């Protein structure tokens, strides 16, 4: 059994190294990158970076359901917007007693709608940001997955749900200001306006901390037994069912978790961009989220974050220079990632990149064996002992 113990300590060592790298990158993002950007006259990009890091949290959720579990949701925008609206409602209610948010007056609303009442309390709002999207996703997911509706059908249904929520939010002027959305940048929190530098700096830090948290959660979910179950749903759901598992609950669970992550992302994105409108629920935005993950590399957690940052910065730079060509570029990106680069950037690096480097420095290709069988301590242990037993007999 030595080998097993040894491998455990090895795994722990690896985990520590990974945690160290994550912490180093987080510290880099916190303390090194902002001064550099500000120093080079690109201060507004710090805010952009903060927003994109918030989007990366939503991308983590998509990676969980699409990359690992193989469920393509085209309706993540719903959960994103639900989180954003929750926080925006709380911020808009930070007023002296008896006053209503400004936008109500043109519609002749004099009394706060009941839907707004709970958002006076901070704990409820924090709860709502995560759990309203989670509950909505769990309900929808249960109703759909229960009937073994999956694949393309599920994608279409989530897209229809997106349209439905979009229409609903767009039409309710008297409740949540309809098309115009809720503006949070002039709201105050703890005596400061939301768009002021200290609050934004705080939000930037919070985004990074939550992103690290999301990374840890995804890592934990996708390693070990639960990770194998997710991949099993993706690769052969029927066989998994025959082995005695009920995939429905796993799928509902992972869909709900991804919705919660999208909710957090929506809240953080809203306060950093200063507004949430029903446009967060247009069809294009939700599909774009999928392409971030695809560019970075499906089923690689780092890839989701990396892809989000790369695509969004490319978008902001390209659409500043050539606004027309962004759509051509984006459309081309969809085509290329799907046809030529199915593993995304990280997948390519892992497969072809390593081979390319090896062939450049004239090193022989390593012997291919069944994944990790040679190194599996359990297998080694059995081999040794079985060999002994045979010699005994």
């Amino acid at each position, binding site marked *: 059994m030595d080998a097993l113990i040894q491998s455990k300590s090895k795994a722990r060592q690896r985990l520590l190294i990974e945690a160290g790298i994550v912490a180093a990158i987080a510290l880099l993002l916190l303390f090194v990158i902002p001064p550099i950007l500000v120093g080079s006259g690109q201060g507004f990009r710090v805010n952009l970076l903060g927003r994109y890091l918030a989007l990366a949290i939503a991308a983590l959720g998509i990676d969980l359901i699409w990359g690992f579990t193989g469920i393509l949701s085209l309706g993540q925008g719903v959960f994103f917007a639900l989180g954003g609206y929750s926080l925006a409602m709380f911020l808009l209610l930070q007023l002296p007693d008896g006053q209503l948010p400004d936008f109500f007056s043109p519609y002749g609303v004099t009394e706060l709608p009941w839907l707004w009442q709970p958002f006076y309390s901070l704990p409820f709002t924090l709860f709502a940001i995560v759990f309203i999207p989670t509950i909505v996703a769990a309900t929808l997911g249960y109703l759909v997955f229960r009937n073994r509706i999956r694949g393309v059908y599920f994608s279409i249904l989530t897209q*229809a749900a997106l349209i439905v929520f979009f229409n*609903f939010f767009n039409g309710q002027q008297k409740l949540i200001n309809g098309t115009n959305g809720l503006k949070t940048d002039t709201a105050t929190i703890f005596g400061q306006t939301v768009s002021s530098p200290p609050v934004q700096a705080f939000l930037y830090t919070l985004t990074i901390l939550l992103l690290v948290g999301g990374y840890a959660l995804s890592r934990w979910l996708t390693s070990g037994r639960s990770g194998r179950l997710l991949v099993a749903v993706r690769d052969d759901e029927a066989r998994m069912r025959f082995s005695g598992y009920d995939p429905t609950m796993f799928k509902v669970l992972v869909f709900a978790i991804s919705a919660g992550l999208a909710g957090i992302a929506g809240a953080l994105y809203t306060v950093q961009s200063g507004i949430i409108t029903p446009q967060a629920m247009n069809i294009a935005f939700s599909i774009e989220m999928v392409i971030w993950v695809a560019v970075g590399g499906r089923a690689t957690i780092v890839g989701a974050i990396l892809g989000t940052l790369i695509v969004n910065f490319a978008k902001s730079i390209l659409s500043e220079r050539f606004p027309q060509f962004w759509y051509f570029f984006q459309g081309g990106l969809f085509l290329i990632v799907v046809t030529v680069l199915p593993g995304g950037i990280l997948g390519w690096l892992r497969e072809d990149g390593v081979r390319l480097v090896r062939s450049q420095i004239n090193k022989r290709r390593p012997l291919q064996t069944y994944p990790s069988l040679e190194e599996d301590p359990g297998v080694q242990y059995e081999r040794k002992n079985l060999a002994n037993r045979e010699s005994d007999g």
Partner: protein
Amino acid sequence: MLSGLLDGIFSGISLGSVLLLAALGLAIVFGLMGVINMAHGELMMLGAYTTYMVQNALKGTPLFGIYIFIALIAAFIVTAIFGLVLERGVIRYLYGRPLETLLATWGVSLILQQLVRSVSWQLVTIVALFCLLFFGAMWIVARRTDFERARGWFLAIMIPLSAAAAIATGNVLGTLYKPAFTKLWFDARNVDVTAPKWLRGGFPIAGTQFSYARIFIIVLTIACVVGVYWFLNNTPWGLRIRAVTQNRTMSACLGIPTKKVDALTFALGSGLAGLAGCAVSLLGSVGPNTGQNYIVDTFMVVVVGGVGKLAGSIIAALAIGTANYLIGSNTLVDLTAPIKPLSDTFAFFSTISMAKVLVFALIIAFLQFRPGGLFPQKGRTVDA
């Protein structure tokens, strides 16, 4: 009261027939290949723009009175060719990966939308020149036996080279023949198709106006459904398409050229989208985003109808169209006025957008009883 109901049913059916026309092509393709074509709406949009161009070309000629029929043929041909290119160029590499196909066709739809916004002779020249240079060079080089080995190098050199040559030529020509060459064909604004004289107006029955344009669309839809039905049931290729839909592997074993069937079906489905676009252009102005308004509803038609039979799509389209209209207009509110709580509920949903909310809830409820739609594919696979 009666006229309200009549009006509601007529408008609902005409809405449903547009949906059906749009969903017909989608349903055939989805049934055959399991591929959801997100660019279907954009193919409709192309059909509508083709109608617009035919109308402009025939203005002032004696043919203008019947231009709509020429436009229908042109729209069918243009979108069918486009669909064929799409299938040969992209989708055939993605069979068996439906989710990836969905993303790829979404990319195509983005490109098509922007293409309509920024197409000009300059852009056409650049794209044509690039294709000529790149694929021409590939055609020449690919005859060498060691092409596969040098493929990476070839791509790395030829793509930037031909792109640079094409863009340079385009820009030079653009500066030489400035206004005519770089002028955008359509602009980002919406364009209007004026219906021919005999399609304007309508005739009144019992106080309801039956517009000729809508009746034309209903007739067109019926003609298309009958045509597709006849094609699938009475022609050799229709037989092959049905065979591949039922069991692809077995059909391939029996010598049916499944790849040709795929390409043909995709072209047919795209052509039907073009016809739908032509019909849509009669109802209102057409813009680059026109297609987007229809895709989700047409997808719902496919989901509710199931892929087993054409009848599923017909029933689903008419049901969804009528339900959308009846709930969205005030018809149901008036009808249920005697029962107060019911009419209040309907009043809450009585806008176009809120109607969609209720219809979606109904669809989800329906799928609880019939997860495979009205007419699911019959078979004994574990995945069904």
